[in-house]
C-alpha cells in the first residue's frame, strides 16, 4: 500500500491511498483503502490521513475517521490519537499496520504497530526525512 497527505499554500489538506491489497486475498475482497473514513480521510478542520496494514481491522475501527474524531471532539493531540487507534483499538483486535497524518497546522505525525513502515516527509521549512525501520 502507498499513500500521501499534503497541505498546500491555501491550507487545504488532501489525502490519498492506493494498494494491491494483500497477497493471497480472496477474489473480490476489498480492504480499507477505498472506504472513505477507514483507510483514507481528509478534513481541513482536523487533518488528512492515509493508512496501511491489515485492512479488515482498519475498517472495523473506521480508523482514519476515528483518529480525526479523537482530535476534533476529544481534543487529543494527533500523536495521542494515532496511538489510541493503533495500539488500543486495532492492536488488541490483532490488526497490524501504520498511519501517516498531516494536521491543519502543517505538522506531520506517523505511527505504526508493525515492525516498520516506509515513510517520509518534506516541508516548506526545509525539513525532510525518509525512514523505513523502527
Amino acid at each position, binding site marked *: *500500500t*502507498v*499513500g*500521501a*497527505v*499534503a497541505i*498546500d*499554500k491555501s491550507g*487545504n*489538506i*488532501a489525502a*490519498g*491511498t*492506493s*494498494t*494491491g*491489497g*494483500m*497477497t*493471497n*486475498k*480472496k*477474489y*473480490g*475482497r*476489498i480492504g480499507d483503502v*477505498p*472506504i*472513505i473514513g477507514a*483507510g*483514507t*480521510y*481528509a478534513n*481541513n478542520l482536523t*487533518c488528512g490521513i492515509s493508512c*496501511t496494514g*491489515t485492512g*479488515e481491522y482498519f475498517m472495523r475501527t473506521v480508523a482514519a475517521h476515528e483518529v480525526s474524531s479523537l482530535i476534533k471532539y476529544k481534543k487529543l493531540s494527533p500523536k495521542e490519537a494515532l496511538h489510541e487507534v493503533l495500539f488500543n483499538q486495532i492492536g488488541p483486535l*490483532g*490488526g*497490524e*499496520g*501504520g498511519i501517516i497524518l498531516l494536521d491543519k497546522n502543517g505538522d*506531520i505525525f506517523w505511527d505504526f504497530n*508493525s*515492525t*516498520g*513502515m*516506509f*515513510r*517520509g*516527509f*518534506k*516541508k*516548506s*521549512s526545509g525539513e525532510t526525512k*525518509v525512514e*523505513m*525501520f*523502527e
Partner: protein
Amino acid sequence: NSFAIVIHGGAGGIKREYFTQEQQDAYAEKLQEALDAGYAILEKGGISLDAVQAAINVMEDSPLFNAGKGAVYNSEGNQEMDAAIMDGKTLNAGAVAGVNHIKNPILAARMVMDSSEHVMLSGKGAEILAKKFGIEMVDSSYFFTEKRLNQLREIQGKEKTPLDHTAYLIKNELIDDHKFG
C-alpha cells in the same frame, strides 16, 4: 503560505536485517522521488490534491511497492487494486475498488471524485468510466512481477495473507510471524 507532504510506502515485516543495502537504497531513492514529485507541485502553488496524486503515481509506477505496477496477487493469481482520494476542503471523495486494467488507480479515484456523482465504483464499472474519461488502461500483464508471483506461490492454498514487502525479504520465515486478516 507554508506547505508540506508526507507519504508512506506500506508497512509490515520491515527490519533492517531483512534488506540488503541495495534494496534499502532503492526504497529510499523511490520514496524521495515520490516526495519530490508532490513537493514540486506544492512549491509552484499547486493544490494538495494534485500533490498527493503525483506522489502516489511515482510509487504506483514502481515495482517496489504494493500498488499499481508492484501490486500483489490474490488467491487466484490475479491483481485487484483499490485506491481513494479525499479533499479536506470540500469533503469530496472518490474511490475505485477491484480494478486490474487501470495503470494508475489513484487517477481513477480522482476521476470518480471530480467527474461523477458517486464516491466509490468497483470492478468493471470503474474501468468503463475510467476508459471513458481517457485514463490510461493497460493489459493486466503490465502488473506482472516475478517477485510478487513467487510471494503468492509461497502461501497459495493456505489461509494466509502477509502484509506488504514480504517478497523482498531475504528470509521468508516472517510469513509465519504475522497476524493475518
